[in-house]
């Protein structure tokens, strides 16, 4: 797919398409009609930040020097404004795979060298410049902090407020401060509602507390 400028990167557009599709799925209310969700999407803070990041990647690949520089300046201005408005900073150097979802804005900084496909970031997530690589399908819960020269594998879940400064293998969960690394094979996530098999849907209230 050409984006109108010869030689510009078609993969950026494909990545943006996946970003938007996943953002529509995960950042808008599934109970609302699809058209309304589509209308809401451009106003979503996290999505705005991702779109501007893709603009930067796309501008970088434009082969005509003068035009490339003009587009990069436009990207720089947009990034600055988006950062003030949304509180989300996605470092220009970070190569991000398709399907990134920033679920909620505020206090988000993403600066590693590489980030894989279909990652998911909540508010208050800080991933420092030092981080080498993040795999595919990695979830960062609200307030997670990731530091140091580390690598994070595929299908990793970094829990809320985890402070992580060690590499994490594939299919693990990192929880706590300092984060403990727990393979997903030794626990089971709670079943989604509807598959509860007659069990109570939520934690029961502690004894002595009335609803």
């Amino acid at each position, binding site marked *: 797919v050409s984006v109108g400028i010869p030689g510009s990167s078609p993969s950026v557009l494909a990545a943006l398409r996946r970003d938007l599709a996943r953002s529509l799925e995960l950042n808008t209310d599934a109970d609302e009609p699809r058209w309304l969700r589509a209308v809401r999407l451009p106003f979503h803070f996290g999505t705005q930040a991702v779109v501007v990041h893709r603009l930067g990647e796309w501008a970088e690949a434009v082969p005509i020097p003068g035009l490339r520089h003009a587009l990069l300046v436009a990207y720089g201005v947009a990034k600055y404004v988006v950062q003030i408005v949304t509180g989300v900073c996605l470092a220009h150097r970070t190569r991000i795979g398709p399907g990134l979802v920033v679920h909620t804005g505020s206090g988000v900084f993403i600066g590693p060298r590489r980030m894989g496909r279909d990652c998911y970031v909540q508010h208050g997530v800080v991933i420092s410049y030092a981080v080498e690589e993040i795999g595919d399908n990695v979830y960062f819960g609200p307030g997670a902090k990731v530091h140091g020269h580390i690598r994070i594998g595929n299908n990793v879940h970094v829990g809320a407020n985890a402070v992580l400064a060690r590499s994490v293998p594939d299919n693990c969960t990192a929880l706590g401060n300092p984060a403990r690394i727990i393979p997903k*094979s*030794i*626990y*089971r*996530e*709670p079943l989604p509602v509807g598959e509860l098999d007659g069990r*109570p849907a939520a934690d029961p209230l502690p004894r002595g507390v009335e609803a």
Partner: protein
Amino acid sequence: MQISTQVGAFIRETLGGGRPDLTLEPGDPLVELGVLDSMGILELVTFLETRYGIRIDDHDMIPEHFGTLERIERFVLKKTGAATP
């Protein structure tokens, strides 16, 4: 009281997946029963460390150590150095 009984009581009272009537046999598979979620595992590890004065490292976190109450007991005994050869 045996370690597996103590750990079983802890899981039933603290974790348990909202099932106060839960009964746990030493050989019951904890993951398949759904009584240990990710936070549960973390709480269990913290409980084992403080209760038995052991240190649980990343490489200890494997199904062979946490799959059943029996395995947890064997693991704790190994860690405390009390395991029979």
